[in-house]
């Protein structure tokens, strides 16, 4: 019973991970790409939590959001439109 629910959750989380990873490459605006990267690291943090690794989940959430904030700072420097 519980195993089926865990399998279903894994499928949902992993497929949303793949969807976000594909969506990053289709977005032209670099700001949107940085925000999607934050969503990607949020999903990865959820996966760590499902794998019983809460230590990695905390680090992934903090570092993912932190790097995304820094990337937004860099984006305002180099301009929002990519090549």
């Amino acid at each position: 019973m519980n195993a089926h629910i865990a399998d279903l959750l894994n499928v949902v989380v992993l497929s949303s991970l793949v969807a976000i990873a594909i969506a990053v490459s289709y977005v032209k605006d670099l700001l949107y790409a940085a925000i999607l990267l934050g969503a990607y690291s949020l999903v990865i943090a959820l996966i760590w939590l499902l794998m019983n690794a809460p230590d990695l989940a905390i680090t992934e959430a903090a570092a993912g959001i932190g790097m995304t904030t820094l990337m937004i700072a860099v984006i305002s420097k180099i301009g929002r439109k990519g090549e």
Partner: protein
Amino acid sequence: MRDFVLKRVVALVLPFVTMLGLYVIFHGHLSPGGSFSGGIITGLSMIAFSLVFGLDRSQEKISERMMTLIESFGALWYGAMGLVGILRGTSFLMNKGAGIPLGEPGKLYSGGLILLITLGVGLKVASTMVTLFVSLMEEEEE
């Protein structure tokens, strides 16, 4: 970016974010997390402050020179805590073997020197994040 609602929400939320970061740092040996994650959370609260309220107001709170001093202090603090073992006649970073009381298991003070070492590393990580962000933003303004 200079929105009224944003400023009020950030002013309400940021103290709790800073407290969460300090909690994660201090409970690094008991619960998930540690000095690196807690330091990043603490640094992110300062970064969010300077993103919303502007770089000048955050420089008034803690100047860049102060941040650099805190960053160096974190590394020196780690080294100093390691030297405690040598001064007690054992090897570098020795904890229990140097005769430091370990405290009760499960309580906050249960790791000897680990709590102090974690505090130093957390300060180092937080100030490094803020210094990185400030140097990126200042490069933009020039």
